[in-house]
């Protein structure tokens, strides 16, 4: 069974979102997602300032046998990316909710975060 923190919200495509307040958010992929992918060996991150609509491809993760896009759970503008992942993508496997965060963004669509799944809903969705 994978770890699913209670204070986060989740997208069907296995991203988590943390509401940092003041319209700012941080996202990553879930413990379940990293465990399904296996060890991540490469990552393509967006640039600071990139704009996304909800559901757009934000970047790509590559593991030994597979590559997967990750998607914007909310519309917004990228304010920071976790550049340390370019050298150490394994942080996503080791600490998906902490040092393995992917992107911070600001969104004026903050209300939409409540439309994402709760931890309990995500647990059911992931089949854990």
């Amino acid at each position, binding site marked *: 069974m994978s770890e699913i923190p209670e204070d986060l919200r989740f997208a069907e495509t296995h991203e988590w979102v943390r509401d940092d307040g003041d319209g700012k958010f941080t996202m990553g992929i879930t413990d379940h997602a990293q465990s*399904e992918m296996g*060890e991540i*060996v*490469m990552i393509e991150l967006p640039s600071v300032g990139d704009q996304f609509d909800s559901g757009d491809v934000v970047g790509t993760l590559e593991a*030994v*046998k*597979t590559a*997967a896009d990750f998607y914007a759970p909310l519309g917004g503008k990228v304010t920071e990316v976790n550049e340390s992942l370019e050298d150490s993508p394994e942080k996503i496997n080791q600490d998906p909710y902490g040092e393995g965060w992917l992107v911070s963004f600001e969104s004026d669509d903050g209300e939409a975060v409540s439309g994402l799944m709760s931890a309990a809903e995500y647990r059911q969705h992931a089949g854990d």
Partner: protein
Amino acid sequence: MSGTIFDHSRPGREGLSLPELDVPRTDPAEALGGELLRKDGMGLPEVTESQLMRHYVNISIKNYNIDRGLYPLGSCTMKYNPKLHENLARLPGLSELHPLLPDGQVQGTLQIMYELSDLLCRITGFDACSLQPAAGAQGELTGLLLIRSCLESRGEDHRNQVLMPDSAHGTNPASCSLAGFEVVSVESDQHGMVDVDDLRSKLGDRTAGLMLTNPNTLGIFESKVEEINGLVHDAGGLVYMDGANMNALLGIALPGAMGFDVCHLNLHKTFSTPHGGGGPGSGPVVCNSLLEPFLPQPRVVKNEDGSYGLSRGGSQPVGRLLAFHGNVGVMYKAYAYVLSLGTRGLEEVSRNAILNANYLKARLTEAFDLPFDSGPCMHEFVVSGSRQKKEHGVRTLDMAKRLLDYGYHAPTVYFPLIVSEAMMVEPTETESLESLDGFADALLSIAREAEEKPHLVTDAPVNTPVLRLDEVRAIKELCVTEPPSEAGKAND
């Protein structure tokens, strides 16, 4: 035995004797100028012929290949290829030609190319063929360039989206990007086929076309193919068939009749050249008369006097894809294969490929989950190791490694991406019943091990020349050159 060829090197050893020098010796420094000479030695290994032979034979023994046993790599058609066709392609009159010889001196080869083009058109139901592309992915690129040229000729440059199912081979989106298109993914339905409603919702003014593999990468025949192709045509797009899975259709079904506009064939898998050997491939493109004017030039033509030549014209060709005329050695083998089997023989190839796949599938479903059960499969099928992972913590990767211990090459794993813990099995038509049973017994035995003694599977392989490789490190710290050994340096 071990190490690289450089480890066998000793100063002064050699594998051949050159005759005495019969011209005056020249000092290279004097002739060329000292600054042009390299300072260090070349670092080439100095070995005898017998050392060289043993070194490479010992390496080749460690290799697993179709001449040793079943090679069920899904989507790859790793079938046995008759040695007769190799011998024919090596006849000096064929193999020793220079590509720039005048047409009059290579009539035989031109005739073979002309007739092969015609045979491939008849096998696929199309009107015209280019033998130029060097392999499947280049065939895809060629086909997409034909589509782009056709749209441009209609003044429809704005059509820049190519649709493809989420089960597509990775080369499809890559070829699209290379041809300047944007990729739009179409979902699969619960039967593993194109979700027609999703397709319909994604067609529009910007649709350039659809790329479809049929049978698809799940080994399932897209039974709505005519409806799908009709929808794309109605939206103003063209349809490309990835012919990677043609081994299921030979002599049975014509892509041209299914409504496709263009497809490529992999001669180096379906038509008697080994696949995956790193050697030359060949990915001819066949198309309908709509796209023919855009085919790359030159093509082989038959002159009025019955002789063969190379066309220089073509009304609006896309550019050359390859120097000269394609990989002709592969074409000889394909020509020999088609002629030696004939129409009925080709049909038997596909029917036996389908029969073998269905037999294996039926045996393996005893222990493995079927992600999509749409009735009989075509020439390959996909099972999932999800049950083993969930109940015993044994992943498909572990079972694939364990198969090596049993003396088999593993199937394709973790593809297509829409199936978790996927194992994609393509036995091909060249396996006997005993061979299929041997493989099924091995995989079922591994499923029992996963249940009873999972460490046997998660620790595998143990009977191979090397134990489990660190695949993560291989990707992160890729090093494909051997640093010069001490022995190699010593003889500089």
